[in-house]
Structure formats: C-alpha cells, structure tokens
C-alpha cells in the first residue's frame, strides 16, 4: 500500500500539477474571473454556484456544470454565466461556475 501511494505521488509530481482552464495562466498562482456565457434574458435576482477541484493533478472531483449551479439557487431563466479559477503552485486548483438569473 505504501509503495502504491509512493508511486502515485511520484507519478503525480513528475507528470502533472493541478492546473485549471483559464484564459491566462499563472504557474505559481492563479486567481481569475472571466465570462462564460450570456443570454438575452433580462435581469437577475438569484445567483447559484457549482465547483470542481483538483489536487496535485492526481484527483479531480466536482460538478461545475451550469445546470448544477442553476439548480443550487433554483434558477430557471439564466441571464449570464461567469467563472472563477484559482490555482496555488499546482497543488490545489478550483474551478467555480456562477450562474446569474431568475
């Protein structure tokens, strides 16, 4: 078990880090916000979020779909969607979707 964990750790460190999709990438530190989509619906009174996370590029979990974010606030009419991406020295990367609507 120890050997397996060691191998996984080495493989993770050698092959990849926890990077997140962004328009601009910071190798050491990333903390950005950007647009994802916009609709013709007017105004918004609700905001919903959904996120996913990666640790060392080895394990990645979460549901950051627009559907999940809209569901979290009971949004049925989407006005626009933004996202936020953070990454700290390739150890932890988080991708959060923010849905605005009614």
């Amino acid at each position: 078990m120890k050997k397996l964990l060691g191998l996984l750790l080495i493989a993770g460190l050698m092959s990849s880090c926890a990077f997140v999709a962004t328009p601009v990438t910071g190798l050491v530190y990333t903390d950005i916000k950007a647009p994802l989509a916009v609709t013709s619906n007017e105004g918004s009174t609700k905001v919903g979020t959904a996120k996913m996370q990666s640790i060392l590029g080895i394990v990645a979990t979460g549901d950051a779909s627009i559907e999940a974010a809209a569901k979290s606030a009971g949004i049925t009419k989407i006005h626009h969607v933004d996202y936020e991406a953070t990454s700290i020295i390739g150890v932890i990367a988080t991708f959060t979707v923010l849905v605005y609507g009614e």
Partner: protein
Amino acid sequence: MKTLVIFLFGVLSMFPLSQIAAQNLDKYYTRRVQEGGDIFFIFPNEDFKNSVNRSNFFFDLTIREGSDSATINFTYYSKDPAPAISLVLITHDDRLEAPAKKIYIDFVKKKWEHRCSVKVPFAGLQKMISTNSPLQFEIVTADQKFVCETKAGKWQKYADALSKIFYIFTSD
C-alpha cells in the same frame, strides 16, 4: 538553479503581498451591477457542521439593493428525508426564524441532500453578524431539530469579512 530562484522571487515580488496574504474581500463575495439595484452574492460558507450527525452544512447569501431582505440558500444532509420547515439563526442574545422553501431534494452518497431557501430581514441579519457571538443555524423539521455550528475563530474571520461587505452594501 540560482537564476531560476532569483527569477521566481522577482516574479512573486511583482505582486503586492496584500493581494495574496491579507483578507481579500473578493474571495468572499461578488457584485453584479444592474438596473434596479446591484446584487451582492456572498460565496458559500462550508465551515459549518451539523452537530447531530456531523454532516456538512453549506449556506450562501444574496442581498439586493432596494430590498430589505436577504436570501439565505442552504444545504444540509440527513439520514432520512427530513424537509426543513424553518431555519433559525441563533446568537447569544438574538434569534431569527424564517420559513424554509425547498429548492430541491436529492439522494447523494447514502444521504438525503436538502437544498432550501429562506428570506430574513437584512437589518436583523446585519445586527446578528455585528455581535461577537458566533452564529448557529437550527434546522427545524417536522420531528427533529439540527443545530449547525462552526469554530469561533473561523466564524470571527468570516463575520469580519461579512461586516465589511454589509458596510459596502449599505453605504452605496
């Protein structure tokens, strides 16, 4: 190697330390400017635990200019389906109860996931946040009550940020 270290140090020193280390309100909330009143959305707080079954309790806050109420959307987990009737916010000296409205119910990882929404008076919430007493949430169902709480230190840091956001909200 030495050159690489100097290069990385140079790159890092271009960022103000305060941007990375100090309390940055951006990580607590986002503001959308729109006709009819800006929306302030305070990101989900994931520090709370249900003191009965030790499951997670998440909540986020939405406040809107021109409205005297705040919307709290919250998620809790239970072994049996236990829809919330109301949510009670409790501090040492104060108590605020609001009827809960279901957003959805789901079954995730052997537990019932309940997502609900309540509207509370903004002034009452602001008053509770401004006290030093840690906030507790009590979820009231038909036959049970779950108290959700966090560590005092974590709450203090969060409450400080929230007070500043509320100040920005009310001073506009």
